[in-house]
């Protein structure tokens, strides 16, 4: 299926450390997006990377995409306690076929 799968399921780090989350998928895609969800809330879009891009930056976020391996990674540098949330990758090929993974639960300890 197109649905992404995040790894690890849960990650716990100290404030100031970097956090890396991975996403794998099975079919060809047009773009891959990362979303963040604070506990019990809706999802917020973080960053989108297109299939012809290999790396993208936004503030403390760095996303890579390897279409040959069908995988992506999200790196959060210099993490803060406020980064504690669940992070989801979402893949899509067309307009209405976005599929989300089960997410990585990140805990950043102060």
């Amino acid at each position, binding site marked *: 299926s197109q649905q992404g799968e995040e790894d690890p399921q849960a990650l716990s780090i100290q404030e100031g450390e970097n956090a890396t989350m991975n996403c794998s998928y099975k079919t060809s895609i*047009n*773009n891959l997006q990362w979303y963040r969800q604070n506990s019990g809330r809706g999802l*917020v879009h973080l960053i989108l990377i297109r299939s012809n891009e290999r790396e993208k930056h936004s503030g403390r976020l760095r996303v890579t995409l390897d279409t040959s391996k069908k995988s992506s990674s999200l790196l959060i540098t210099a993490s803060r306690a406020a980064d504690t949330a669940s992070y*989801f990758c*979402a893949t899509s090929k*067309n*307009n*209405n076929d976005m599929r989300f*993974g089960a*997410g990585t639960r990140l805990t950043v300890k102060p």
Partner: protein
Amino acid sequence: DVKVTQSSRYLVKRTGEKVFLECVQDMDHENMFWYRQDPGLGLRLIYFSYDVKMKEKGDIPEGYSVSREKKERFSLILESASTNQTSMYLCASSPTWDRDQAYNEQFFGPGTRLTVL
């Protein structure tokens, strides 16, 4: 700012009741979506709509129906609620697919946590 609102944050219903979940967006988006989120399963697409009065089934439409009479409003209906429909329901909207930019960011509401007793 894009705003997607959902009618209730928390809802408790009884088995067999008809349940309406309402979603409204204020950005004139063509596309609207309903997902349910369960632990370990991520978000699963129930239904989506790409225009008024249009609807398409997602991955898990059984037990649900939808209505889109106006562009800004997308309703999810549980015809006869069951305990296995206890879940977090998330609504989202997005603008028309930009094929050149491959851009289809979705904007989410805060979610409705539904408990069916």
